[in-house]
């Protein structure tokens, strides 16, 4: 995103720092420090030994960057498997939402059919219901399907999103009508128009939705706690909570575990920062 252009009457003078700018930097850096420090401390603690982590007064840098805590995490729990479960959960929900939401959003935005508005109102009402209200029966359904303690149980209900449909519909609505009509005259069917003409045009929205969905899926805790109680089918969020149950106050191990568990999303964030920010901004201005 471009930097804001300087406001009239106050050109940034080279060589001299404006005191107001300096104060702004001071406030913002202090805030940034508060935001960043917990991560720094997490990282440093993860490389300490248990006795070093509780030394008084504390050491700032680890004395000899001990990696035992990391290996402990992987032996105490099937952590690698849990990371895999989280990845599959994230992939399942994200792909599901991209496909199902974009199809429905396109229909709602660009097609005419009977009952459209009633259906759309029903979709919107789903958006309004808090997730907790549905968990008990959802759990029963998963159980009836024989899917408790399985990876599909993690992502199945989350593949369908009213929010995603709503978001993409706004984008489809903004597209010019001529594109579709030209294609229709060329004899293209609805699926073809959707797939090769319209869908590519909303790519930024799809990227934003994908990134936001991936984030929520990776971070979700309540639903996995409910459906998958077996460590081998848990995602990392729930696995980390059970790690806490085992190593109550062994903080190097807990910090190592939490670092490993949050790293994939952090890496994704660093790589796709623009999409994250855009996703949030979109859901902000169009919600």
């Amino acid at each position, binding site marked *: 995103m471009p930097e804001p252009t300087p406001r009239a009457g106050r050109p940034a003078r080279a060589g001299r720092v404006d005191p107001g700018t300096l104060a702004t930097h001071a406030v913002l850096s202090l805030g940034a420090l508060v935001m960043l420090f917990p991560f720094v401390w997490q990282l440093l603690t993860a490389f300490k030994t248990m006795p070093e982590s509780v030394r008084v007064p504390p050491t700032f840098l680890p004395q000899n960057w001990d990696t035992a805590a990391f290996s402990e995490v992987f*032996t*105490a*729990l*099937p952590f690698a498997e849990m990371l895999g479960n989280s990845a599959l959960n994230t992939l399942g929900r994200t792909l599901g939402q991209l496909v199902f939401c974009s199809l429905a959003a396109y229909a709602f935005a660009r097609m005419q059919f009977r009952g459209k508005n009633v259906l759309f109102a029903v979709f919107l009402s789903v958006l309004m219901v808090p997730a907790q209200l549905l968990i008990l029966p959802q759990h029963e359904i998963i*159980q009836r399907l*024989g899917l*408790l*303690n399985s990876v599909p149980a993690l992502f199945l209900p989350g593949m369908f999103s009213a929010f995603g449909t709503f978001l993409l519909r706004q984008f489809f609505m903004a597209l010019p009508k001529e594109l579709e009509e030209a294609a229709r005259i060329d004899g293209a069917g609805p699926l073809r128009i959707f797939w090769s003409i319209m869908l590519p045009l909303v790519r930024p929205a799809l990227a934003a939705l994908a990134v936001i969905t991936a984030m929520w899926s990776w971070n979700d805790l309540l639903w996995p706690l409910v459906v998958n*109680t*077996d*460590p*081998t089918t848990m995602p990392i969020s729930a696995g980390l909570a*059970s790690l806490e*149950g*085992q*190593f*109550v*106050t*062994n903080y190097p191990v807990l910090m190592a575990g939490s670092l490993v568990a949050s790293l994939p999303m952090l890496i994704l964030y660093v790589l796709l920062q623009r999409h994250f920010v855009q996703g949030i901004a979109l859901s902000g201005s169009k919600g």
Partner: protein
Amino acid sequence: MRRRSLLAGAVAATPVLATGCSGGGDSPDGSGGRTVLRYGMWDPLQVPGMRKIAKAFEAEHPEISVKIEVTPFDAYWTTLKTAMRGGSAPDVFWMNAVNIQLYASNGVLRPLDEFIERDGFDMGVHPGELVGMYSYGGERYAMPKDFDTIGLWYNKELFDRAGVPYPDDTWTWDTLRDAAAELTDPSRGVHGITGEMWRQYTYYNTIPQAGGYVIRDGRSGFDDPRTIEGLRLWTDMIDRGWSPSQSAMTDTRGRQLYLSERTAMNYDLSAMASQMYASPAIRDHGGVAVLPRGRERATTIHGLANAISGKSPRAGAAWEFVKFMGSRRAAEIQAREGVTISSYAGTQDIWVKSMPEFELRHFIDMLDYAVPYPASKYTAAWENLQTQLLGRPWTGKGGIEEAARTLARQMNLALEQEK
């Protein structure tokens, strides 16, 4: 260091599932004509012992084989419940006091009386409190396998330094309080005692000692003045600074404080002996005494038991296995593993002698006046209420009486739901 609840090994401890595979799927009745029994348990530490017992059993009963299935404690009960609904529960599985009435009252356990009477099995070899704990409506539903009592663990070095004589069976609450006061040494960061807000370790013992009760005839005892006395013993010592407050003990648990020699006395499980024994300092100058008496003597007893699924089509074979698990032979195999105390009378010596530095016999001596772990059908509901409502008095903010009365009211409300 690990969070543990009822029994020593109870809460899912250490590494992963030793024998893999949890519920789900049905077991074919015969592999080569043998009946396959599925045996559900949660403690990975006990897998080696259980496997030895299963081997011994299979040697006696060549027509039956036992398949052990381990599910971590955190997931054990939800998994079992789901398996019960779907009809895929193991044939034999571990049961505890908190859950027995729930399962028995819902008819998902096989009553054992007909088998016990048919075979003339003498249940008297197991402590009566445990047999009673696993009875419901006059029927016995599970075979006790091990037990735990609470004792007073103390640190001889800290006692010597403060010039306080070691605890023995003459101790009363008054002696305990005086000692706690004298042993407290703020300059060294040492507390006299650690009175954790953890029912089984602390107030479930002092409540009956004061002559109170937790639950009786489906009503809460927390509004009984004597019950409140049993609670106040602890909150008082916290208020006076002889025990750390529960806030401090959340960040560093009582057992940790004892192991790191920052508390002179700690009420703890018999099953912790092997963990205490592993610490050189405690092994050298740690000790065990019977709990000091209040109006009465008491300690909380809890133990695990083996139950048979009401839906198992292999109940006959399952009973043979359960009976074997309740025998002296199995008890001795289990005792030699050193993880738990077998409940079979006379097999505890092996355990007592395995750690001669501690006088572990005190744990056995207390059986004479042990009080069963209190439970009802939905035990978990009112147990959760305790942690929610006793927090303030346990952090030195006073109001134990009021908190206890609120707890009684809420607990009665919860008990009302059981009917």
